[in-house]
């Protein structure tokens, strides 16, 4: 999915249970509903977990820093952090890069 406006991320909202979730193949992860509408949310969140993979999967360079970031309505997403290991509890900005979410320190 593309078409994020500046400072916003386009997520999905289930038209059945109204849950917000990260766009994915398949039905709503909460109720199984198949109706999905786009929903733009602020492209920022709070770091809930972070690690640095020193032996990452093929195609990624070490250190491969990953963070789980909490967005609006408690939605969690996995993001790549390029320059430094994000600190749990801190706010970060997010952007979409193809099918990857990337963090950057919030300014």
């Amino acid at each position, binding site marked *: 999915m593309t078409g994020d406006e500046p400072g916003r991320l386009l997520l999905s909202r289930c038209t059945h249970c109204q849950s917000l979730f990260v766009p994915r193949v398949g039905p709503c*992860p909460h109720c199984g509903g198949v109706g999905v509408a786009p929903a733009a949310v602020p492209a920022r969140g709070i770091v809930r977990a972070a690690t640095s993979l020193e032996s990452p999967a093929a195609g990624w360079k070490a250190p491969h820093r990953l963070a789980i970031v909490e967005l609006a309505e408690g939605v969690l997403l996995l993001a790549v952090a390029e320059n430094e290991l994000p600190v749990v509890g801190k706010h970060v900005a997010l952007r979409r890069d193809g099918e990857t979410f990337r963090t950057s320190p919030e300014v």
Partner: protein
Amino acid sequence: AQFTTPVTAAEVNASRPVALPLRLLHCSAISDGAAAVVLERGAGAASVLGIGQGLDALMLVDRADWTSFRATRSAAQRAYEMAKITRKEVDFAELHDAFAPFAVIDLEDIGMCGAGEGAGWFSRGWTHPDGRFPVNPSGGILGRGHPVGASGLVQLAEVARQLRGEAGKLQLGVTPKVGLAQSIGGLGAQNFVTLLGQVGEAT
């Protein structure tokens, strides 16, 4: 076991980082290996008292808790219900410690202690072979190596050996009556708990 040389905490903490805070010696070695279990009719010291499977979402972002495996908790509950016993009647366990923190989480998930208390059980030595609740007298997956598909069955085999008094130099001092085998599959999304013991003598 593939790894039988004792390591110190300092050596673990000095081993190379894998996925911080996990370092190499926190992580099991993916190994070759095989296991088989032969089931037979009738009673024995290692009868299946109860077995349970639990499921969870595969992705961490879809899970309610990162310091507990819901799949183990539901598997354990089903196994205890089938066996009609409580955790207090379990003498020891082979827990799935593919990564060191798993053993701490597993101990809590099978109900031996409350959330956040597992590490204290290990640091106080309660999980040693002569402790109040021995965990992984076989050396566990960290010691044995991790032939991924076989590891779950090996847990059962190691519990059976203890119950039959056939564990050799690893035999627990008091031959246990009831043992618990746990396995984690699918990144913790598909876990099993099995209770083995003498039918009719579990209580």
